[in-house]
């Protein structure tokens, strides 16, 4: 189901344990990761993650709030958005 897909975008200074911390949190919230891409942009580490929250017993808000806590600890910027916004905006 497309409605349950989310895109997580994490960016900030590179350091040890970023992917581990985020994926551990996603596992805790029973979110299935479908794809991960990462890159360095203008000296910043940027990670994009496609996941499905359809089988999680947690709500979108609970998951987003949980991930935000992790991002705050890592001192990184985090965006958690339903994937549909990207699909609608960039395809005819």
């Amino acid at each position, binding site marked *: 189901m*497309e409605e349950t*897909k989310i*895109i997580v*975008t994490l960016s900030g200074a590179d350091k040890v344990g970023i992917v581990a911390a985020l994926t551990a949190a996603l596992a805790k919230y029973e979110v299935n990761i*479908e*794809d991960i*891409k990462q*890159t360095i*942009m203008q000296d910043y580490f*940027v990670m*994009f993650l*496609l996941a499905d929250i359809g089988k999680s017993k947690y709500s*979108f*808000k609970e998951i*987003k709030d949980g991930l935000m806590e992790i991002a705050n600890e890592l001192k990184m910027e985090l*965006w*958690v*958005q*339903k*994937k*549909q*916004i*990207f699909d*609608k*905006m*960039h395809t*005819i």
Partner: protein
Amino acid sequence: MTFFSTDSIIETIHMIKLNNLDIRTVTLSLSLRDCIDTDVKIVGDKIYDKITKYAKNLSRYADEIENEYSIPIVNKRIAVTPISLIGESCKEYDYVYLAKVLDKAAEAVNVDFIGGFSALVEKGCTRGDRALLDSIPEALSATNKVCSSVNVATSKSGINMKAVLVMADVIKKSAILTADKDGLAAAKLVCFCNTPSDNPFMAGAFTGYGEPECALNVGVSGPGVVRAAVEKLDKNADMSELANTIKKTAFKITTTGELIGREMAQKLDIPFGVVDLSLAPTPAIGDSVAGIFKAMGLEDAGAHGTTAALAMLNDAVKKGGIMASSHVGGLSGAFIPVSEDAQMIEAAKLGHLTFDKLEAMTSVCSVGLDMICIPGDTPNSTIAGIIADEMAIGMINKKTTAVRIIPVPNKKVGEMAVYGGLLGEAPIMKVNNLSNESFVQRSGRIPAPIHSLNN
């Protein structure tokens, strides 16, 4: 495996974070026609109950969707059936009371504005219409969230000059009653020619007679996104390329509006109405329609060429947006409200943008003379003349035009009027002081124009 493009993600986040892309408003359109009664207290009770029932979850759902897509939904609003009709069957008219009920209901459901304290009087007033018009100054000064609009002209009916004269007086009185707030009540009041019945933007939102019981209409924004896209273009890009860039950007903005609108309508379990694909500026830095003119190559808004630039912008926004939504409606185009656009304010302060140039621009923009502050001692006849001129532009060109003008009490040309929030601030602009008294006092109606022999 589902495909996803990192470029698309970065672009979307940039549009929201750096270029002020937002959903300006989700507006619940609600018919109040079943609230009519002979007792005004019963009418008030029915209105309050209906609004609080239908809009109970509007604000909460908007917050949820805002969080799910990380796109700001700036305002939640309600538009209702013109109240002139709803209060007209009462044995004793009390439109100010009904305005207060609307305000209380809007407060109870936590929306930013409620529109529909309105009347459609392009051919003449019924008794209820006239009573509503006379009550506007008190109604707007006694409430916080109520917005009022009066349609005084259409291309098919002509211009009701008697109503224009009345509205000039109503605007002046509204400003005077809120003199301590630089005439704020007049900022919540607009006169229209060819008003659309599904517009989600204030102050002109109302639910027209042909609209369904309820619907969810969305107003998108995004001048900052268009400016950024135009700035990125090669400086030598020709006009076709410029127009195409604007079209593509408008498409992206509008699809977002459509998505949010459909989600909201689904959650509220009501039909989705229209996307109004307007470029609505805010006083925030960069979120400016005048900024787009500069990016196009004009030194400032007001330079010769501004009208042409606006015409292309307005048209390209519609062309790009119409493809992105199943139903486009409302005002749809580029707004040019002076006080709500940081670079328009600056251009007006510097004298680059004059009242007359703004009037010329309204012949090709989406609405009209919007959020323009003029001296508080401007005669009523001059205000009536300003309205009549603007209505004539709409009537002849078969487009929507509007006047939202504030004669700021006790202030003179060059001084500033400050409203704050989305309404912003503006310098008092100079108007032409030549007398038009004998012309506007003729009253009556300017006949509808011929619709052939176009020139």
